[in-house]
């Protein structure tokens, strides 16, 4: 089941193709953050997490993942489809009327692989803590992973959750923050500075690890290290340093592609940079 680095990179290339094709297909959605977090989600679902594509909501005995920054739904849907939760062809329905692949992920349409609605930011860490506490009550030793945007840390609920988890020794939780320095209105440093994120999370009592976010080997090594550090009384926060739009040169490093779809010419340019490894949907 677990794959080597080269195989993971191949999957990531296909996932990036799916992302730009999905967003182009409905002329809406969020390609920038999706592309930046592709390597992480591929590493998680194909290299790190113990999970079963025969979806059961309770996920007992499985590692769970919660996407808190729900707007990067394209990367989530592609990774779920390639994991076997649903057929790849369903990606063609993304954001279209009647689709299970809603603009932001939801359980409402019963899409396998999704355990909570997200999109309104700041809520996923609390939900993940609840799921992690349930695992402890169920004597289930598997882990709970999350992903958050760095802009999302401007939501107050995140810090309520950040205070709760160390106090209650929620040490089966690995929260990753996509530190791309961008949000809709511009760089986070201009919109609302996040300051020293390591110092902040450490001050709240988390075990903090930095991770290169667009280097597959680096991601796998860091996530393995995070797993080793779990169960030691502290929740784990990973500061994942990514390039927004990674993999498509004209989308990289700018907030401009946060929520903009490529036109036909831009799609062609983007796909030329991304190898089709597993077959387009």
């Amino acid at each position, binding site marked *: 089941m677990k794959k080597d680095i080269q195989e993971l990179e191949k999957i990531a290339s296909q996932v990036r193709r799916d992302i730009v094709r999905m967003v182009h297909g409905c002329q809406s959605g969020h390609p920038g953050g999706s592309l930046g977090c592709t390597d992480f989600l591929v590493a998680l679902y194909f290299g790190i997490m113990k999970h079963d594509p025969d979806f059961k*909501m*309770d*996920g*007992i005995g499985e590692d*769970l993942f*919660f996407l808190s920054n729900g707007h990067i739904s394209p990367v989530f849907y592609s990774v779920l489809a390639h994991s076997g939760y649903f057929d790849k062809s369903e990606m063609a329905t993304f954001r279209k009327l009647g689709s299970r692949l809603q603009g932001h992920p*939801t*359980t*409402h349409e019963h899409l396998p692989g999704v*355990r*909570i*609605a*997200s*999109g*309104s930011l*700041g*809520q*996923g*860490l*609390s*939900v*993940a*803590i*609840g*799921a*992690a*506490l*349930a*695992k402890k*009550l*169920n004597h*289930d030793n598997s882990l709970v992973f999350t992903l958050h945007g760095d802009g999302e840390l401007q939501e*107050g*609920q995140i810090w*309520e*959750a950040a*205070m*709760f988890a160390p*106090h*209650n020794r929620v040490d089966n939780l690995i929260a990753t923050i996509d530190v791309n320095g961008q949000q809709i209105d511009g760089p986070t440093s201009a919109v609302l500075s996040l300051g020293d994120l390591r110092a902040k999370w450490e001050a709240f009592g988390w075990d903090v690890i930095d991770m290169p976010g667009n280097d597959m080997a680096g991601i796998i090594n860091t996530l393995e290290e995070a797993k080793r550090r779990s169960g030691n009384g502290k929740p784990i926060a990973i500061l994942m340093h990514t390039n927004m739009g990674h993999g498509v040169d004209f989308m990289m490093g700018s907030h401009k592609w946060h929520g903009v779809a490529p036109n036909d010419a831009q799609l062609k340019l983007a796909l030329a940079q991304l190898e089709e490894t597993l077959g387009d949907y």
Partner: protein
Amino acid sequence: MKKYTYTEKKDTRSGFGAGLLEAGKRNDQVVALCADLIGSLKMNDFIKEFPERFFQIGIAEANMMGIAAGLTIGGKIPFTGTFANFSTGRVYDQIRQSIAYSGKNVKICASHAGLTLGEDGATHQILEDIGLMKMLPGMTVINPCDYNQTKAATIAIAEYEGPVYLRFGRPVVPIFTPADQQFEIGKAWLINEGTDVSIFATGHLVWEAIIAGEKLAEQGINAEIINIHTIKPLDNAAVLASVAKTGCVVTAEEHNRLGGLGDSIAQLLAVNNPSPQEYVAVNDSFGESGTPEELMKKYGLDSDHIVSAAIRAIARKMPVLKDLIEG
């Protein structure tokens, strides 16, 4: 007319505390969360019996709602406890996305609802919570009337799959429903049969409606009194059957007249059987400090106001009836 008496008064929040303990004994998946109001929510007995199944969240209600949603994923049945204001308005988006839209089996248990919280004043006296919660698709909204019914409702919602808002209060009120009742979600409870006016009351106003019924009887008016403990889903059949018989309506609730029980009944009747209706509710205002009794009187939520509303409602139907019959 059935005469209701009581030997004891208790707060409905204590009914919640007793029900939570019982629900916890019956099902080991029941867990409880509280945002720094254990004593106010009467959760101590549950915590003593099941310390490992209780989570002290601190003063962080948004986090509490999210954690509750997450706990359901592992099969738990979480009961959150805080004041009604902090259970609804403060955390509306968390409830909307993580609980209601996500279809999570969370029981949002809210004490100190309405004016009868008393001296703390309007910052804490939410009068909009029924409206906020009933507008969420899939949310069940329950407002029981006394200690026994709140206890029974708490046990019943643990056995029901889906998000529930359970609203109760702080003051002691007469216990007049049976201790051994089976609480049926969504089933209106007939207090007294009558023919002249239908009085639909919820929560603390049910006892006031009973007193009002006695006062009306002294004036020769035969009121039908129905306890609507479940505001959503509303027992449409019971409401329509009663109004078909009486032809006019009084609704009574410790809530803003906008968005509460009265509006649910008005909407049902507007579509099916338009009828004169009088509201006993707070008239689109905030509350203020005072004793519960003073506030209920000042804001028009006592038995005397129900009596005058009933007389108004009857007067409004009479000319119409007279015209039709004599015309």
